[in-house]
């Protein structure tokens, strides 16, 4: 097994935090698929008791069960890949799709606090990255934004091109903490706030790939988080 660096350990801590934070959302989606399978079985059992009258019902239940199985398999593969994102290869990712997937996972968290996300994006802005790792970090930062905001807030997510970089900007009333280096985050005696951990890990991830992360406060005293990452023109 490869030696574990401080950065790897911090990455793992960040993934673990995101996984725990989004546990309810993942459970809900996975059990929604199981619900379809459970109900399909009940329909099949009902049609089996009266086969003459219920052939159409049985065929429908079978079709629904097949769709639910396919969806469930995808969810489980996604879930396993999120546990081991360091093992995947970098591929071109459409950033808007990635953000929308993360917001889909967080839809109930946002709805519970009546938080509105407005996503504005240029067309077809891609980056070359490990997809689950990138999605986990974005998911974590968006989840943290929801947690820090008061009810009824609006969050703007702007995705745009700037020179050869894709910039993902999160605008909200959340004032980001300072970005800290890995060696500053790691201490057995200090409990690192999750927001600082996620920012530090995201910053290290962006820097390792030729990008950077910046935080600032705009003229309306709103917080701005900008992630710069080299643009990819490849679609394969």
């Amino acid at each position, binding site marked *: 097994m490869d030696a574990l660096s401080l950065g790897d350990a911090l990455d793992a801590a960040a993934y673990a935090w995101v996984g725990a934070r989004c*546990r*309810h*959302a993942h*459970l*809900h*989606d*996975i*059990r*929604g*698929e*199981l*619900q*379809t*399978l*459970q*109900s*399909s079985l*009940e*329909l099949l059992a*009902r049609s089996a*008791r*009266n086969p003459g009258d219920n052939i159409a*019902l049985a065929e*429908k*239940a079978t079709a*629904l069960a097949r*769709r*639910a199985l396919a*969806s469930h398999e995808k969810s489980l593969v996604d879930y396993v890949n999120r546990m081991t994102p360091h093992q995947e290869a970098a591929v071109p990712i459409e950033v808007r799709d990635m953000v929308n997937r993360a917001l889909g996972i967080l*839809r*109930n968290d946002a*709805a*519970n606090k*009546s938080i509105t996300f407005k996503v504005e994006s240029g067309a077809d802005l891609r980056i070359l990255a490990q997809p689950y790792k990138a999605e986990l970090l974005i998911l974590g930062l968006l989840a943290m934004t929801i947690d820090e905001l008061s009810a009824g807030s609006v969050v703007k997510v702007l995705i745009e091109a700037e020179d050869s970089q894709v910039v993902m900007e999160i605008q909200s009333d959340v004032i980001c903490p300072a970005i800290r280096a890995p060696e500053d985050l790691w201490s057995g005696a200090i409990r690192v706030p999750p927001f600082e951990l996620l920012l530090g890990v995201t910053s290290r991830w962006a820097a390792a790939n030729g990008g950077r992360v910046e935080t600032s406060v705009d003229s309306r005293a709103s917080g701005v988080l900008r992630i710069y990452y080299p643009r990819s023109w490849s679609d394969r």
Partner: protein
Amino acid sequence: MMPPAPLRVLYIEDNALVREITCDLLADDSREIVAVATGEEALSAFEASRFDIVVTDVSLPAMSGFELVRRVRKMAPTTPVILASGYPIDLEECRLGTRVRTITKPFNAPELEALIEDLCGPAAGAAKPT
């Protein structure tokens, strides 16, 4: 003698597969199911028509099941409600009032029917055709 009017159930579930198949399982002569995908659609349906019970998924886009129940309760404070979710719900924490039950996915139809009967009375839980 006129047969009793069917129980009118407003069912909210954003997962199209779950919505469709649950309707197939629940609908019979004793129950009329109106199924919608969002909280907004549910509120429109609730304003336009009478429902005996609301069965809603918790995780919905834009408006959560909790928020939907709060708004329904403003219009009709005693409407019984069943909340369905993929994880256990702490009802005390939600503060949604009385006549609320929860059910955890994956549930089976008899479990849901028993809750409906518990909230609406035995007439609603008529035997299903086999």
